[in-house]
Every structure is written in C-alpha cells, then in structure tokens.
C-alpha cells in the first residue's frame, strides 16, 4: 500500500516535470533539425498510376489526403517565404490522378502553380496543363475556363488564348454573362486596368477561402496603387508643362488645382513623389512592403 502511494506521488511529480522537459527538448530538436535544413521528401511515390493502383478502392479518400498535403506544403513554404516549390506539381499530379473530379485541386492548384514567387511556383505552363486536365474530366464546369483565361491573361500574357478560354467557358451551362464580355474585351484591348481589376474582384467575391481572399485583396490594392501612380505621374507631367518644373510634393498638385485633396493609397496613406519625381507609395504604407516583395521576385503586378 505504501509502495502504491509513493508511486502515485512519483507519477504526479514525473508527468508535469517530464512533459515540461519534453516541451523544451522538442524545441531544441526542432531547432537542430531546422539548422541542418533537410529537405523532407514529401513525395515518396511519384507515379500517379502506381499510387492509384495501390490505393485500391480508396482513391478518392487518398486524393483528399494528398490535397491536404498540397495545402500544407504550399502553406508551409509560403509562411517561410521559400520560393522553391518543386514538389507542388508531383503532389497535384497525384491528387488529380486519384480523383479527377476534385475540382478544387485544379482551381487552387493552378493558383499555387502559376504566379511567380513569392505567390507561387512560377510554372504557368504546368498550371495550364493542370486546368486542361480538369476541363477534360469536368467539361461542363465553366469556372475552369475562367481559371485558364486567368493564367493566360496574367501570367502568360497571351491575350488571344485568354480570350478563347473565356469564350469557350461562356458557352458552358450556368456560365455568367461577363465571360462573353471578357472574351471580347481581352481580345480587343489585351491587358487593361479594368479587366485586371474585374478578374481579381471576381476572385475576391467568389472565393470562400480567407487566404485566397486576402491574396486577391492584396492584388486589388497593388493594382489600384499602380493605376493611381500612373495617373499621378500624368498629372505631374501636366504640372511640369504649366510651371516648368516637376512637383516635389503632392500638395503642389492640390495648390495647382489638379487634384482636390492629397491622394491616398487604398490603406489611406498619402502618396509621395520619389527622388525621380515619380509618384510612389509612402514609406509608412504597409503596401510598400508587399510591392517591394513582388518587385524583388520580378513579378510585375498587372
């Protein structure tokens, strides 16, 4: 009886102290593992056919698991700001082979694959391949044509193919009317602020995923900044014509009656004129960091 009690007391002492030690040790082990920067092999089997054969009748379930791994892989790389997304395609390849009707894998997968770093893997060619595979398996789903047009428009800058994708999608059941309008507009104008704004706004409005919404919102804001700066530069040219010198501050434009008030970016921070006399984001604006990040990875925001 005495022995039983002493063991119970020992247990009460050992469990909290032990797990506190485990907690601390695990942090140390994680740090060590991170320092040796081992690339964990996320894809042991790279053959979709083999994985499908091995999955027996559980292929759809396995597809869900693989899709979760895609999200985790992309999310982890994204959070750590790592540009190397080499395993994204094999994971998506296996996911869609396991379940060809998993539409979300084509849609989001293309979104992960297509944009250049830091937003994606910079492989629009693979994104096109993925969506076309999705269209083949789900020919009536018009949103896939929208995604295809999106990749051609933003990342490949192939406006004829973008227009063709929008037009083809507009013929599908339940396709929204704007698909046809977009097809004509992209064919006639190529890239334009209104079209880009509309496409990102559609992503923002229709997506239920918070991270996709956040990404679309950021693109919308940067797009607005780009257009604002373009217009402010035009006004600065006008000011230079009238006064023989470029404006050094935004208040110069206000005093000249070219704008009503100090122009502000989408987050409410006033624009400024940079050293080259061009309009740009205020140093205090959080959007500046985003803009610099995209410029660093040479991804021109349309």
């Amino acid at each position, binding site marked *: 009886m005495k022995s039983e009690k002493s063991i119970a007391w020992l247990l009460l002492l050992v469990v909290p102290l032990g797990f506190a030690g485990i907690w601390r040790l695990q942090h140390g*082990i994680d740090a*060590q593992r991170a320092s040796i920067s081992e690339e964990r092999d996320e894809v042991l089997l790279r053959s979709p056919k083999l994985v499908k054969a091995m999955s027996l009748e559980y292929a759809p379930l396995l597809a869900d698991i693989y899709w979760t791994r895609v999200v985790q892989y992309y999310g982890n790389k994204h959070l750590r700001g790592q540009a190397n997304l080499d395993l994204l395609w094999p994971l998506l390849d296996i996911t869609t082979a396991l379940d060809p009707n998993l539409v979300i894998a084509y849609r989001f997968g293309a979104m992960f694959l297509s944009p250049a770093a830091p937003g994606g893997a910079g492989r629009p060619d693979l994104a096109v391949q993925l969506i076309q595979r999705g269209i083949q398996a789900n020919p009536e789903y018009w949103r896939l044509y929208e995604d295809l047009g999106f990749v051609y428009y933003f990342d490949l800058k192939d406006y004829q193919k973008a227009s063709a994708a929008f037009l083809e999608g507009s013929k599908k059941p339940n396709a929204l009317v704007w698909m046809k309008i977009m097809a004509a507009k992209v064919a006639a104008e190529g890239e334009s602020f209104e079209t880009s704004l509309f496409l990102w706004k559609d992503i923002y409005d229709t997506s239920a995923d918070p991270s996709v919404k956040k990404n679309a919102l950021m693109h919308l804001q940067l797009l607005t900044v780009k257009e604002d700066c373009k217009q402010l530069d035009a006004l600065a040219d006008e000011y230079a014509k009238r006064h023989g010198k470029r404006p050094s501050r935004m208040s110069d434009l206000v005093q000249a009656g070219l704008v009503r008030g100090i122009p502000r970016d989408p987050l409410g921070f006033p624009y400024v004129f940079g050293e080259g006399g061009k309009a740009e984001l205020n140093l205090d604006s959080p959007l500046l960091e985003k803009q610099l990040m995209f410029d660093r990875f040479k991804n021109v925001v349309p």
Partner: protein
Amino acid sequence: MRRAGVVALNTFREAVRDRVLYNLVFFALLMIAASVAVGQISIGIEQTVIVSLGLSAISVIGLLISIFLGVALVSKEMDKRTLYTLLAKPVRRSEFLLGKFAGLVLTLAVNTAAMAMGLLLAMLYVKHSLERSDTVVLVAVYFILLKLALIVALALLFSCFTTPLLAILFTVGLYSAGLYVQELRNLPIEVMSPPMSAFTKWLSYLLPNFENFNVMAMAAHGRVVPGALILQNTLYAVVYCTIVLTAAAAVFSRRNLK
C-alpha cells in the same frame, strides 16, 4: 535495482531461448541479396539503397519485436502464472516492470548491434571501403534503438491494464500517430481556427514524436548528424520513457492480480 537487474537478465535469456535472435538470419540474407542485386539494378545509388534498406529492415524487425514482445512481457507471465511466484519473492512490482523493460531493451540492443554490423559489412562489400562519414549510419541505428525503447515502454504501459490484442493496437496506433506529429505541428495556422490550432499544438507535444529519431535520409546521403541532436534525442527518449514507465508502475501496482 539489483533485483530489477536480475529480472532484466532473465528476460534477455528468455528472449534468446525463444529464438528471437533468429531474425538476424533473415536480416543477413536480405543484406547479402541486396548487396549483390543493387549493383545489377541501379547506377550511382548503391550506397543509398543499401543504407536505406538496411536501416528500414533494422527498424521494422525491431518494431515487430518491441511491440509483440513488449506486450507479452507482462501478459505472458500472468498467463503462465509465473508472475505470482516471482512477486511472492522480495521483488516490487515496479522493479519487475523495470527489469522486464531493461531486459527487452537489452535484447533489442544486442539484436540491433548485430544487424548494424551486418549493414556495415554490406556497405563494405558495395563500396570496398568504409569512410569516416559512414559513422552516421551508426547514429541512425542508435536513434532506431531509442525509438524502440520508447515503443517497449508504451507497449508495457498498455499491457498493464488491457488485453494483449488491445495493447498491440494501442501501441501501433500511438506509434503511427507519433510519426505524423511533425505534420500536426506544421499544419498551416491560417487554415485552422485558433482553438483547433492550440489543440493540435498541445497534442503535438504530448504525443511521442517518433519522427525525431528518423535520420535515415541523412544517413543514406552521408550527411553529418549534429552532436547536439544526438544528446537531445537521447534525453527525449530517457524523459519520455521515465514518464511512461512511471505511469506503467502506477497502473501495475494497483492492478488486482487475483
């Protein structure tokens, strides 16, 4: 402690008598076959294949022994009624458990060391010489042994309060979950609600993290494992085994053996 040592030594003897070490023959045959075959079927990855295959075999064989024998450590003694004879002597239940644990870990250590020797011989056959960087293979084997000790402790804990079949299922389940602890911790925070995120984080520290002991890929590519990691993993295994064995002793001391 001396009494636990006697139990440990007898557990080891019993395992040897039960022909547990016969698996070494299987391992030797596998290594010989792989060493000969790998040169015929692959180019440039002979060492990688031999090391990966060897370490995997050591791990799988060790797992089978640790789970099945670990669960049987207590239940077999009860079934054969030898436990009652033993406990009638001046041996505490906790000492009996500790001795059983140490005995099986000793068996696994001997078994694993013999297999490691076999693996090194196979590497020598394939590479014609061994380099200093090959010591990483021994580190990987040591980590496997730490992992196996933790599994034995878990199997022992479960066998103290449930049937052998359920104890096997619980151990296998916990081992499988422990392999994905890292995944649990790496789940993107953005896609989870804050309570779920906190829950998975806590769970990831409570579950035994078996992925800590996996350096097979590093060993296969001859990459150095830092000394600090060896020390931390050793401490991790010791602390976790202490927690589990204390819990097992607490459960077993209260168990009605009538």
